[in-house]
């Protein structure tokens, strides 16, 4: 078994977080969630339905792009994923701008479906491949989607976890705070504290994230990686060394 890549650890964490889901939906630009969802289909006795927004060939949607949002509104989607240019300690995510909105310092693609799905899907898993004080901040510059809502606001879901290359945070909705669950092998608490811009809860002793089991790595590298290459060519090239193909 060659060296375990950080992305593989993250995929394994996500795989455990989606256990038992009936329907896992994956948005655009989410190769790590997609890999975990494909693995869950291979490894779970009750294989979840998996829908990829980006890829008609790998989704169950037959009523257009709106069907993802409609299904979430109907309560049929159990898991979805988001990242954020910034994620703050209250679970707010920012996919829009850094700085003042009217005169921003940086601009990102946009909110996508976050301002809706973040409310409607029970298990939202946040992931951020850059774990730094720049990305994990005290307070986001722009709330694309809020981490928690007042009790009168209709909300059936929200963030349950934040996964980074350093660690796995859980999210406590009642306290509107993250809690450090595990630290990935090769990293330590001081590194997490140094690189996290928001305050978070933690147990006295923070366990290490378990290494991905050999069977999981075998399926990921052998079966799932080529599936991913068709949808996320750049990711598959970087992580699994699969060359970007010329168009058909």
């Amino acid at each position, binding site marked *: 078994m060659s060296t375990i890549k950080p992305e593989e650890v993250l995929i394994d964490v996500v795989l455990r977080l989606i256990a038992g889901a009936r329907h896992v939906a994956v948005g*655009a*630009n989410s*190769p790590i969630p997609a890999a975990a969802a494909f693995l869950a289909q291979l490894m779970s006795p009750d294989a979840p339905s998996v829908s990829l*927004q*980006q*890829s*008609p*060939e790998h989704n169950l*949607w*037959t*009523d*257009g*792009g*709106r*069907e993802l*949002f409609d299904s979430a*509104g109907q309560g049929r989607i159990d898991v979805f994923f988001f990242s954020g240019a910034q994620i703050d300690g209250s679970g707010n995510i920012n*996919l*829009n701008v850094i700085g003042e*909105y009217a*005169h*921003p310092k*940086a*601009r*990102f*693609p*946009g*909110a*996508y*479906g*976050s*301002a*809706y*799905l*973040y*409310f*409607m899907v029970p298990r939202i898993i946040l992931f951020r491949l850059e774990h730094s004080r720049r990305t994990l901040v005290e307070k986001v510059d*722009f*709330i*694309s*989607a*809020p981490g928690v*809502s*007042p009790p*009168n*606001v*209709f*909300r059936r879901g929200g963030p349950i976890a934040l996964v980074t290359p350093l660690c796995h945070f859980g999210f406590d909705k009642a306290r509107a705070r993250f809690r450090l669950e595990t630290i990935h092998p090769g990293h330590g608490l001081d590194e997490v504290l140094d690189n996290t811009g928001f305050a978070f809860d933690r147990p006295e002793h923070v366990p290490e994230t378990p290494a991905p089991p050999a069977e999981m790595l075998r399926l990921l590298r052998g079966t799932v990686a080529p599936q991913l290459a*068709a949808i*996320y*060519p*750049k*990711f598959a090239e970087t992580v699994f060394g699969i060359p*970007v*193909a*010329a*168009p*058909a």
Partner: protein
Amino acid sequence: MGKIRDLDSTLAAIADGTKLIIPADYAGVAMEATRALIRRGVKRLHLVTLPASSLQAELLIGAGCVATIETSAVGFGELGSAPRFTRAVLAGTVTLKDATCPAIHSALRAAEMGNPFGALRGIVGSDLLTVRPDWRVIDNPFAENDPIVLLPAIRPDVALFHAPLADRDGNIWVGRRRDLFTLAHASAKSVVTVEALHDGDLLADEVMAAATIPAFYIEAVALAPRGAWPLKMGDLYGEDTQHLLDYIRLAQTEEGFRRYLDDQIFRRRAA
């Protein structure tokens, strides 16, 4: 005049200032038509994306064709951000109406139904509400103390998209790309490019009819084989990832972007 025309005649419905709606990459993007619009030099478009866009919005903005864009995102996904879109927003040379995907779907469905507004759960507590004063929060009249967002209907002048097949009458087979029905219904006119022409009546075959937009929604159709290139077209052809990576690299500078336009749009026509 029949509905099957050459590309430039088909695009005549898209005038300067048109409120133009375009689909997401998975639904069939009319890239050949977009290049023709840039060659023609269309101006002041009010562009709406259902719900997000990549190269199409990016090129139209970079080429100076767009006054306003209403979108939930413009970017190349994992390949990178959209350099000209980003630059235009930072420089304030395009007016951006930030949205979220299901809000655009809801506002278009409202137009599809002839309603003045659509409703949507969520959003409450998002700063999108502060930057979109045209979105309103009302109290759900069927409950107590239950805020819900209403969105004004979006009624585009023209929808522009690329589909696999058209027949001679102008009926359009779209397959699973059901967003294209919403575009055609919500818009006053639809102009379409297609991979191929279908012999016979698409509405006469029950299997094909089920995924066919009837011609009475369609203004004009042009044949454009591989018309979504370099974007993908369902199961017909994939995205030209290398082309997009090259584009993103070039478009980091205004000068590189101009070179791309010359090479890929203006010169291609001359050749």
